[in-house]
Structure formats: structure tokens, C-alpha cells
């Protein structure tokens, strides 16, 4: 086997509990088994009462969380090589967990993809009802539905053409009406509307700055002063001139603009942010713990 084949052979991941060789009987068996188990579970859940469902949901939640808890606490493999066999039972468990992480991560991707369909259904029902009843501003709902179908249609057509034609379609001179249509909708409209919506923030910041930065109290004055220093620190031209003066002073650069902004950031901003972040982090952990162990009562009572 020459070196290139050896490299290529080594990069193919070996079959694990979580995958199988493409097209093999083992892989098909796993797919069919998973499908059967889920179908039976769905039928069972559909007919089960609320009490049973509560326990099933709690159990599924616990198992899902337990995987990552176990993965966090259990020792991870040291410098694991492809095709390496575990030395003992404990290491076999860590290899099993290691192999499971990408698969478990994919579960959320797959669920999200299916649930996106439900979300699209929600958008549809709202806007189709509006068009049917000719409610106020129903014309915009027509625009939304048309845009949806146009984007999906042109997007898929463009993608399909690129898969067939290959890199030839990287060059716009080879584009047809479908490619131009997709480019117009995505690059021309969607991307620029995204940028335009983001740009609205600049107007709001201007009006919020006019409204919020007032010398009403000592705290507000400190807020105003530090904000102005940070804003000026972004101006390279102003900083260039300021530093030129600051370096002439006997304090030798202590009052350079970069030093002032760094002091504000390091001594005030960063510690405050980290303190809030600690609280949020611990709160997230506690919330996650309550959800995992199903300690939270349902509803708002």
C-alpha cells in the first residue's frame, strides 16, 4: 500500500456502535431497529395517560442530560488513535462515550430540522388565514407567501444546477436566469435588507445617546464621562494627536488614550461584566439542574 492510500485508509473512521459501513447490512439493521423502537414508543405515548407521559418525559429528559453529565465527569481518552482498541473496561466506556458525542450532537440538528417544518406551518397558517379573510394589510401576507415560494424554488433550483454543473457556475458569466434570480433574491435583497435593518440601530443609538447621556446625577455624569472617553478611544486620528501630547508630559505616556481606555476596561468594565457573568453562569447551572432532574413544577402556579 503506498503512502497516499495509507493516509486515505487511516482517515476513514472505523465502525463504532453509533455508525456502520455505508450500505452494509449492519447499518440497515440499526436504521430499521431505531425506526421500529421510535414507532412503538410513539404509539404507546399517544395512548398513554398524562401521568405516564409525565414519567416518560421526565425519564427521557434525565437520560438526555445524564449523557453529557457522565461525559463531563468520566475520564476522556488520552491521545486516542483511529482504530485503537481500549486497554480495559473503563477505557472501553470512555471510547464509547467519545464515539457517541458527534452522534448525540446530531440529534439536536435533526430534531431542529423537523421542527422547522412546524415553524413554517405556523407562518403559513397565520398568513394564509389573513389572505383568505382579507384582514388588514393582507397584501403584505401575499408578498410574504410569494417571497417564500420564490426563494425556496429558486434556491433549490440553483443548488441543483451547481451540483450538476460544478465549479463552472462559480463564474457569473455562466449563469442562467435561475442563478441570477437566486443571486438577486439572496445577495441583492436579503443580504442588503439584513444590513439595512442592522443600520437602523445607528439611528436608535443616536437618539438613545441624546436621551440617556444627561448630567442628571453624579452617577449619570460618571457614565457620561466614561462613555465619551471610550468613544474618543475609537478615533485613531484623535488618539494619534492626543498621544503626541501625552508623551510630552512628565508622566511619560500614562495619560495616553490607550492607557485611559484600557484602565476603564480593565478596572471597571471587565470586573463588572465578569461578576454579572458569574451570577448568570451559576443561575444557568441551577436552572439546568432543575430541568434535568424535573424538579420544576409545570405552569405558572
Amino acid at each position, binding site marked *: 500500500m503506498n503512502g497516499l492510500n495509507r493516509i486515505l485508509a487511516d482517515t476513514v473512521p472505523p465502525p463504532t456502535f453509533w455508525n456502520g459501513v455505508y450500505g452494509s447490512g449492519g447499518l440497515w439493521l440499526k436504521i430499521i431497529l431505531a425506526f421500529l423502537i421510535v414507532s412503538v414508543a410513539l404509539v404507546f405515548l399517544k395512548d398513554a395517560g398524562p401521568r405516564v407521559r409525565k414519567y416518560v418525559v421526565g425519564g427521557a429528559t434525565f437520560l438526555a442530560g445524564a449523557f453529557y453529565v457522565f461525559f463531563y465527569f468520566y475520564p476522556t481518552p488520552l491521545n486516542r488513535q483511529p482504530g485503537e482498541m481500549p486497554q480495559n473496561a473503563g477505557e472501553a466506556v470512555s471510547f464509547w462515550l467519545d464515539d457517541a458525542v458527534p452522534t448525540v450532537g446530531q440529534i439536536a440538528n435533526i430534531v431542529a430540522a423537523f421542527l422547522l417544518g412546524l415553524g413554517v406551518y*405556523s407562518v403559513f397558517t397565520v398568513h394564509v388565514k389573513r389572505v383568505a379573510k382579507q384582514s*388588514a394589510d393582507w397584501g403584505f401576507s401575499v408578498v410574504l407567501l410569494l417571497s417564500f415560494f420564490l426563494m425556496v424554488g429558486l434556491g433549490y433550483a440553483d443548488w441543483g444546477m451547481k451540483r450538476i454543473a460544478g465549479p463552472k457556475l462559480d463564474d457569473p458569466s455562466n449563469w442562467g436566469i435561475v442563478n441570477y434570480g437566486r443571486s438577486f433574491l439572496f445577495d441583492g435583497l436579503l443580504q442588503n435588507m439584513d444590513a439595512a435593518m442592522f443600520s437602523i440601530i445607528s439611528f436608535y443609538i443616536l437618539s438613545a445617546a441624546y436621551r440617556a447621556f444627561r448630567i442628571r446625577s453624579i452617577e449619570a455624569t460618571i457614565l457620561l464621562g466614561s462613555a465619551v472617553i471610550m468613544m474618543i478611544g475609537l478615533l485613531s486620528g484623535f488618539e494619534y494627536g492626543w498621544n503626541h501630547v501625552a508623551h510630552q508630559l512628565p508622566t511619560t505616556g500614562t495619560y495616553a488614550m490607550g492607557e485611559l481606555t484600557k484602565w476603564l476596561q480593565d478596572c471597571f468594565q471587565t470586573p463588572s461584566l465578569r461578576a454579572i457573568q458569574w*451570577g448568570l453562569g451559576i443561575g444557568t*447551572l441551577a436552572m439546568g*439542574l432543575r430541568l434535568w432532574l424535573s424538579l420544576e413544577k409545570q405552569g405558572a402556579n
Partner: protein
Amino acid sequence: MNISSLGSLVAEDTWQNQYSNTGRFALFFTVVVVAFVLLNIWRAEKGGRQGKDLYIRRIPGLNAIDEAVGRATEMGRPVVMVPGIPSNVDAIVMQALKIFAYVTRVAANFGNPILVCCAYAPVYTVATEMMRDVYQREGLGDKFDPDSVRFISDRQFAFAAGVSGLMLREQAAAVFLMGDFFAESLIFAETANGIGAIQVASSTQNTQTPFFIAACDYVLIGDEFYAASAYLTRQPVLVGSLIGQDWCKMVVGTLVFIGMALNGVQRGFLDRPTISSAMQDGHMKPLDKPHPIGKKETTMAYLFSPQSEPDLAGVNHRGKYPPEELPESDDKVTNWK
């Protein structure tokens, strides 16, 4: 199964790598946090059964919820709730939905319409079920409108445009913005401000909190977001969890002071002392040349930044191949740290 018996089942080097990589202290601290939370949940449940009520300080933003919903009812305008733009159905969005469940309960009892705008399809499904559940528990199941919980878009600014348009068309009287917000936070806040709505906001992204503070009426900063459900419902589990979190924060604060003092002593207040040994490859080894102690060579630095031991195999995957089989390097690698 305790650690020592597990040790015989797992290769020694694997154990070392695990606890060198993640740090014994990090694991220990996680266990401590979990223990504090569970202990205080137990204490609060025990106290709850004995009729004792535990104190939580006043949080103005949460006191304003009833006022906001009442105002919306008087004006005959809906309440808009936005649980942020999550990338997962995680603890943050679940907390936001729990707060919205409370708001929905108040609105349902007042007969006021609600609008929950979701940016993530799984959140939309969870939110629909939670709000439906609230209406059913209040005995108003037939009054629940499934279209009151909507999936708008999962694109950030399409979502921002959709929700802003919704607020303007429906002339919302109360707007609740809670969860993971990013650049669109100011768009929501200013739009709601422009229509004269009361806004109660909280972002777990610290970078957006200043925008909310500048534009919104009430803001829950940081941990107040997680305290909200305990504050509103006074369930023993939630209050106990909150107290456990406070215990953890006190431990963190104590560690900061201890670290400050220890670092000050080790690194010296005026001159930096010279050290002759330092942590190398996970072990304390004598140095070839003693030098003034660096900021990464203190006890606290070693505690919080554990070092991994070098690969026992000695090579990485690409190192198995002779150099002529791999892409060429046309640059000398400078000695960098």
C-alpha cells in the same frame, strides 16, 4: 462506584489526562455548586412544609408585570412577549418561557390577548404547549388562540423586522423582552418605546444590557432573570435554588479575595521574588535559570489553569507519516509561546 475502585478499571494515563485537562478543581467546584443548590432546595421544601417563607429582595421589574398587563387590558391592546433568539431550547429560553407563563396567566385572567414571538422552531412548539397549558389550568382552555404563539423567522433581522412590525400594527401596550438578545435588542426596545408601551427586559448577553437600560422602563440585570420565577411564584424549589446560587456566589467572592491576597504575597507587593522551580508538563520541576515569578506561576494560576501532561504516545496523528507524504511547510516556525 467510587473513584479509587474505578481507577483500576481505567488506565492510569487516562485518569491523569482527564483531570489534568479539565482540572480537579473545576470538577470539585461543579460538584460543590450542585450540592449547594440541591441542599437548599431540600431546606426550602422542608421549610415550606413548616410554613416558613424565605426572603427575596424587591425586584422592581417583576413588580411591574401586573401593572403592565393591567394597563394593556385597560387600553384594550395586546401584550407582546419575545423569548429572544436562542440557538437551542436551553435553560435561558426555558426560564424566559416560565416568566411568560406567569404573564400569560395574569393576561388570561384579565381576558387580555397575548402574542408570543418565537425565533426558533423548537421554542415555538414548547411555547405553544406551555401557554396552552396555562390557559387550561386557569379553566380558559377554549379561550386560547393557537395563533397567539407564532414562529416569525429564524433569521436575526428578519425576526427583528417581523416583531417590530407586529408591535407597530398591533400597538402593543406591554412588551416583555427576555432571554438571549443580540443586536436586535435596541430595535425592539426603541420600537416599543416609540409606541408608548411599557417594557420589561432582560438579556443574558451582557453586551445588550446597556441598550435595554437606555431604552426600557424596567430591566432585570444578570441573575435577576433567574430569580424572577422564584420571586413571582415563591415555589420552595425555586427559592431554595436561588439561595443555593447565592451561597455559590459567596464562595466565588471568597475565592477572589483569597486569590488576591495569595497572589499579592507570592508575587510580592514591591519586588517580585525569584523562583527556582515551576510547573512544567503537569509537574513541579526545577528551573534551569531561576527567574522572577510570573503571573502564571502562582498557586492560584496552577489551580485554575491546569496543565496537560505531554502525549505519552509522543506523536500526533500526522506525525505517523514521513514528511514527504504531507503538504510542505514554506516557513520556519518562530519560537512562540
